[in-house]
């Protein structure tokens, strides 16, 4: 079990402590926004700041070995029993909310952050939730079980496929290859649709420009993405 405590006096906020609403989150200490927040000390903090404070406290409170093992089991089951990120996330959310004291909002907040971190979103989600439940140790363990176990299964399938001489396997694989391209193209459109809904005109220009650059120009694709990121920071940032 875990609970929210005040960073200043270590009391529970509803047991007479009033610091919690005035507490400056660690990330804002000494910054302009931090100084501005001190000026408006009587204003309640946004929920996300409270969640952050809660995370820092919860991390140190959840270091019990049995609890860590149990949470690690949830990460292991999510990564080894489900194909794709959506199913794994749903399973993990259910288990962590039911058995580990997280709220659905906690998991959703971590999911939202994982979407804007580079790399595999699911592993970023494991790292965020692992860090929340058991600090860096559990975060690293969660990443390890989330990547090593399914990777072992994938490599095993790859080895079996490479060594197989069966014409049946070859036929099935030829169709699976076509299915893989279908999934790849479908994933591109699925990923693009919400972005175009948020930025209809500028988004379409970005997508079209990237397609044209990749199709017609002898440019490095990494450079295309770096340019798109820089341009996006200017033209696609929320107003």
């Amino acid at each position, binding site marked *: 079990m875990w609970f929210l405590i005040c960073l200043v006096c270590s009391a529970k906020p509803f047991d007479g402590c009033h610091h919690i609403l005035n507490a400056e989150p660690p990330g804002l200490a000494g910054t302009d926004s931090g100084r501005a927040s001190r000026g408006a000390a009587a204003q309640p903090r946004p929920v996300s700041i409270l969640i952050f404070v809660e995370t820092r406290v919860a991390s140190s409170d959840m270091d019990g070995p049995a609890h860590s093992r149990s949470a690690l089991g949830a990460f292991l089951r999510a990564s080894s029993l489900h194909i794709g990120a959506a199913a794994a996330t749903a399973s993990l959310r259910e288990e962590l909310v039911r058995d580990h004291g997280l709220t659905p909002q906690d998991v959703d907040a971590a999911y939202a952050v994982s979407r804007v*971190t580079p790399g595999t979103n699911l592993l970023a989600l494991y790292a965020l939730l692992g860090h929340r439940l058991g600090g860096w140790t559990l975060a690293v363990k969660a990443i390890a079980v989330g990547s090593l176990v399914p990777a072992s299964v994938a490599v095993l399938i*790859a080895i079996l496929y490479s060594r197989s001489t069966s014409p049946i396997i070859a036929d099935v*694989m030829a*169709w699976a290859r076509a299915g893989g391209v*279908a999934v790849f193209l*479908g994933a591109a459109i699925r990923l693009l649709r919400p*972005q175009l809904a948020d930025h209809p005109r500028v988004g379409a220009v970005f997508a079209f420009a990237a397609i044209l650059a990749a199709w017609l120009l002898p440019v490095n694709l*990494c450079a295309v993405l770096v340019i798109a990121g820089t341009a996006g920071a200017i033209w696609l940032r*929320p107003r």
Partner: protein
Amino acid sequence: MTALALYWLFLRVVLLSFSGFATVPLLRESLVLDHGILTDTQLNDAIAISQSSPGPLGLYVVVVGHFVAGLPGALAGVMALATPAVLATPISRLLLRGNAGTLQGACSGIVIASCGLMVITGIRLAPQAAVTPWHAVLIIVGAVLLALTKITPVWIIAAAAVLGLVLR
């Protein structure tokens, strides 16, 4: 290519992507076109195999690593996938510092451009996978189904495998 060089290449590619398959165009450019140590068919195989095994979509990188450099290559793939995940917590703190708007705009730009690159790469990979007109039909129908409905990718791969058994 050594496992270390492969790790560095995978890491560079993974750091510039925000979804599992967004790395495919960059990996194809590097491993298939520039270095010539992977074929389009092997890349298609890696995508299909990763769809048939549990875990995130980006796991195909591990299979690519295995095809290129055996088990050390696969390990390089796992490490490259795991490394950026460690950055998730510091990035979440950065978001709370007030740079969220700029970061979100940059992410959107990269995601949209990645989608464009994925479409081009998919079109370039399709001829290798469409060995008969029926395979081409599967590619088109599967892509449309996935784009327009909430069906999970595993059903497309499962249906493809069943077709492979039935139509042989």
